[in-house]
Every structure is written in structure tokens, then in C-alpha cells.
């Protein structure tokens, strides 16, 4: 019997070990917890129950929150794509100097702590803030922008755009530079070039970007909590309230597992679609 080479396994061992100990094991604990019972007077009761999932899935109130969470993530993903795609396109033609400046600019939100950044937005969007003044200047006074879904979308797009831009730019850059040239010399106008050459070739990047942004925004907490206000409830906010304020870890775990399962399902579908579609499918 041939012995399996050990070295390849060893190469992935550190990462695998880290992943197992700090990612898989906590997730398993979380999943187990979500089936435990809880009462405020007795704490966590380690018996199997479906109570937490029933409470979450059979209540219109929570179903609306699930819906809102994924509507928010969907909106943020699409807006990030619209904002990020032109930047990614620009990056393939930019001079190295311009490129590094643009990359530094889009990465800059990530360098600021989420708390500082979010409270910064709260000041800009809040009463007498920049947004209000701008609207007042064009004749729309008394606009309340802070604590709306739009405010949350703006806050999330601000920080998630780099993920989209870098994902798309990577796939555009792996394209042979002569491809767009060839298309143009064969008579493709800018629109045809975008629709029939660039978009299909960058589809893997778009998919990756959408997946990352969707996942990150569905799990974001500080931005919806601060910019959305107390009325804007998403799953992460409910999780915080249940886990930290009420110590109802089993219910919080059930919310977390639900969030994770839905994100995984969405990612699975998107992956299948883009795998099957591929670049050719976009070309009529």
C-alpha cells in the first residue's frame, strides 16, 4: 500500500488546526446551544428543544426581521456593485500612480474603527448635519435621513465597496489586455464592449464581490444599530439583545444559525448560477 505523502497535509495543517479550533468548534457549540432551553430564572437548560426555532420561524414579527435583514443585504450588494464596478473598470486603465491613490482611497474606510466611522456618519446624517444642510440648500428642509434604511445602506456601502472593487478588479486584470482591443477593432462600441466582453469576463469577480458583500452586510451589527436606530431591527440586533442584554444564548444561537443557513443557501444558489452560466451564457 502506498503511503500518502505527509508534506502536503502538513502545509495545510496550521490553517486547518486554527480553522477547526477557532471556527468549526465554536460553530458546533453554537448549533448545539440553539437546541437548548432557557428560562430567565433557571438559565440555560440542557435539554433538546425546538422551541427557539419555533419562536423565530413561526412569528410574523421575526419573519419580518429576517426579511428586512436580507432586503438590506441585497440592496447593499447591488448598490456596492453599481458604485464599485466603474472604479474597478477605471483601475485597469489607470496609471500605476493613479491606481495606488484610488486603491488607498477606497480602502481608507477599512482603516478607521467601525465605531468611529459609524458615529462619524451619524454626525453627518444627524440633525443639522451635512446631509440635512445639503437637502435644505436645494430646497428640501427637515429631511430626517439618520435612522432610515437608506442611512444604513450608505454606511454599509461606504465600508464594503473595497471588497467589491478588489474582487472585480482582480478578475478584470486576469483578462488578456488585447481582448478589449480586439473587440473594439472588430467594431464593438463602448456599450457592446461592456455588455458582451467586460461583464462576462468579470462575472466571477462580480459573483465573488456580491457574495462577500452580502455575507458581511447580513452579519453587520454596529452600522444598522447606530445608523438604523432602535426601530430598524435586523437579525444581528436581535442577537445582541438576546445574547448580551438578556443572556438568552440559546435563542440568540438559533437566530445566528438561521442567519448563517440563509447566507449559505444564497451563496450556494449564486455559486451554482454563476458556475452553470459562466461567461458564455451571457453572450446571446
Amino acid at each position: 500500500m502506498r503511503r500518502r505523502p505527509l508534506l502536503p497535509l502538513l502545509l495545510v495543517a496550521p490553517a486547518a488546526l486554527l480553522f477547526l479550533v477557532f471556527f468549526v468548534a465554536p460553530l458546533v457549540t453554537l448549533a448545539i446551544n440553539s437546541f437548548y432551553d432557557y428560562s430567565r430564572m433557571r438559565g440555560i437548560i440542557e435539554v433538546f428543544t425546538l422551541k427557539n426555532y419555533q419562536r423565530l420561524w413561526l412569528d410574523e414579527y421575526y419573519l419580518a426581521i429576517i426579511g428586512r435583514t436580507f432586503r438590506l443585504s441585497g440592496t447593499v450588494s447591488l448598490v456596492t456593485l453599481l458604485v464599485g464596478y466603474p472604479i474597478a473598470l477605471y483601475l485597469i486603465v489607470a496609471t500605476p500612480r493613479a491606481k495606488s491613490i484610488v486603491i488607498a482611497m477606497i480602502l481608507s474606510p477599512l482603516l478607521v474603527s467601525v465605531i468611529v466611522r459609524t458615529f462619524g456618519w451619524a454626525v453627518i446624517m444627524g440633525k443639522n448635519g451635512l446631509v440635512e444642510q445639503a437637502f435644505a440648500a436645494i430646497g428640501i428642509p427637515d429631511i430626517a435621513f439618520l435612522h432610515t434604511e437608506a442611512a444604513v445602506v450608505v454606511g454599509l456601502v461606504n465600508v464594503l465597496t473595497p471588497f467589491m472593487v478588489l474582487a472585480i478588479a482582480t478578475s478584470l486584470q486576469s483578462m488578456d489586455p488585447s481582448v478589449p482591443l480586439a473587440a473594439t477593432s472588430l467594431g464593438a462600441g463602448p456599450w457592446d464592449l461592456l455588455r458582451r466582453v467586460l461583464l462576462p469576463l468579470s462575472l466571477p469577480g462580480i459573483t465573488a464581490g456580491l457574495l462577500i458583500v452580502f455575507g458581511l452586510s447580513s452579519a453587520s451589527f454596529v452600522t444598522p444599530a447606530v445608523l438604523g436606530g432602535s426601530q430598524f431591527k435586523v437579525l444581528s440586533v436581535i442577537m445582541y439583545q438576546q445574547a448580551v442584554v438578556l443572556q438568552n444564548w440559546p435563542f440568540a444561537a438559533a437566530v445566528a444559525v438561521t442567519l448563517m443557513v440563509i447566507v449559505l443557501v444564497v451563496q450556494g444558489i449564486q455559486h451554482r448560477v454563476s458556475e452553470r452560466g459562466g461567461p458564455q451564457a451571457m453572450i446571446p
Partner: protein
Amino acid sequence: MTTRRMGRRAATGLLGAAALGMRPRRAAAANEVVFASFGGAVEQYFRKTLMPQFEQETGIKVTYVVGTAMSLYSRVLATRNRPEVDIYWANDLLHIAGKQAGVYAPLDAKAIPNLDKLVDGARQPGEMGVMSQVASTGLQYNTEKFRQAGWQKPTSWLDLWDPKFKGKVALYSINVLYSQELLALMAKLSGGSEANIAPGLKKIKELKDMGNVSAVAGTPAEMDNILAQGQAWITYNGCNRGLSARLSGAPLDFVNPKEGAIQYNLFLDPIKGGPNPGPAMKFIDFLIRADIQAKIAENIFYGPVNREAKLSPEAAAVLPYGPAALKALVQLDREVMNRELDSWLDQWNRVIDAK
């Protein structure tokens, strides 16, 4: 073969490294204590003044673990099998909750001579923790805006419902103690009780529906911001926050409403199985000593429980201090609050936070 041996050695090294990283808790040093409590002004004052003084007097070094009352409590619960914290300093509600959960240890009364100098009610049955400070929740308003509008200062909790405050009132999120207290108090004032909060909920819903509420703060820091930006002119707050804002020169004043400000208390609780029980008792004794109680009252604005603590007239006038002031405070049934908290939050989410 060689590869295999190399591999095995590497694996051993790796495990060794992992083991090093996960070494067991430091052997409890006799001169250390881990104290967990709020951030902000409280933490500043502890770090700058109280901790150095304690270290100088006893040679015991204090480690301050900072967080919100709730997040620290969650941490205490999560680490109950391997406690990292010696003393947890928070309010009644978490004192009751933690006692119920069995995460606190009793005090060693012999090691805490200052226990004998406390006001009635501060010592707990079975020495389970000790009430270390008295605080109150009252109204806070913007003196400048009120003066400009020609309004009198607020005198009653029900002033929040005054139609002239349309778009001027800030609420706290129900995750914050002050809102849980407002809910209980409004229930009581509207014919309900801690066990029947429906009337209170209805009353606060009314406040929202009439358009008085212009902002909801998720944290005290956010409330500071809302008041500073003029997004709201009146709200309710803890006396410590109200008084420190006033002293910082902000045009904000704190008032005790005529129905009474709501009394809440701070408790020092030793954590069961904490790494440094001996030093913990010493630090608790230090914190309830008369001079330190007075210092805390004058600088971070929590009323003392040590009978011998002497306050300046300014602090004595506004803090819950002395029999008359204490008698004027409203008491809430914290046992019921703790028991019903899940249901309160759920109802508030659905009724008050609904669009």
C-alpha cells in the same frame, strides 16, 4: 521516512506552540485583583486616582476590565467555569440576576471591617455582595434651549408628554436600564405595576405617537451626542451622567422630578472562583471606606452608603444622600423586573419600536 520524521517533529513543535499559547491561567499572584466595570468617566477616575492610591496603600495592583454592565455580565457568565474577574461592579438588576445564576461568592466579612459602617440595607443577607452606592434616574434637560424658548425647568416625569416638547424628547433603547426603569415607573403611575406593565407601555407609545420623541439612544454615549447636537432637549438619565454633564460646563441640568427620581443601587460582587479572593476583599473594603466613598461621590457622582462619608454641600444637595433625599426616591421591585425582563423587551420591541 525522513519526510515523515520531519513531519512528526514539526507536528510536535506545532502542538507545543499551541500548548504554550493556551497555557493555564497565571498562578494567582497575591498582589493583584481584577475589577470589571463601566467605561467612560468611571474608568478614568479609577485608573487615574483610585487604583494608584489602592496600590500605594496595599501594594495590590488592580486590573480594570472595561465594558458595559450587560456585556461584562455576559462575560462573567461565559467564563463561569474559569473565572477571570474577581469583582464585578454593576446595578441591582445584574446583582439579582447573577445571584440567581450562582456566579457570585459571599463576602468574607472579617476581611471587610468597613461593612459595619454602612447604612441600613447596604449589607446583604448571607453577605452576598454589598450595596456600595446609591444612584438615581431623573430628568435631564438643556437649560439654554429652555431659556431661549422661555420654558420653566421640568418638574415632573409627565412633563415629557407636554405637547410643547414635540420633537424634543430623547428616549433610551430598552436595552438600557434607564428605559426599563421608565417603563416600570410609567406602569406604576398609570395604574399598573412592575408585574403589569401594559399601562406603562401604552403611555410611552402615546409619547411616541404624539411626535414628542425625536431620537432614541442605544447607549449613554449616544445620548450625550444627541443632547450635544440639540437633536433633543429633554430626556431621562442616571444622576452620575446628569451631574458630570453639568460639571463639564454643558448647558445640561439634572433634576429630581416631583414624583421622585428612581433609586437604583450599585453592588460590588465577588465572582465565585475568582483568581484573587484575598485581594478582592481588600479592594471591596477600600471602595466602601468613608473617604473613598466621598471621593467617588464628588468625582463620579454616585451617592455613598458609608455613614461616615462627608460630602461637600454642592454634592450633598444633588446626590441621593441623607435620609430625606433617600426617602424621596421611588423604589422599583427589582426582583420582578429581573424576572420579567425578557417579556418587557419583547413587548417594547413590538409596541414602541414598531414603525
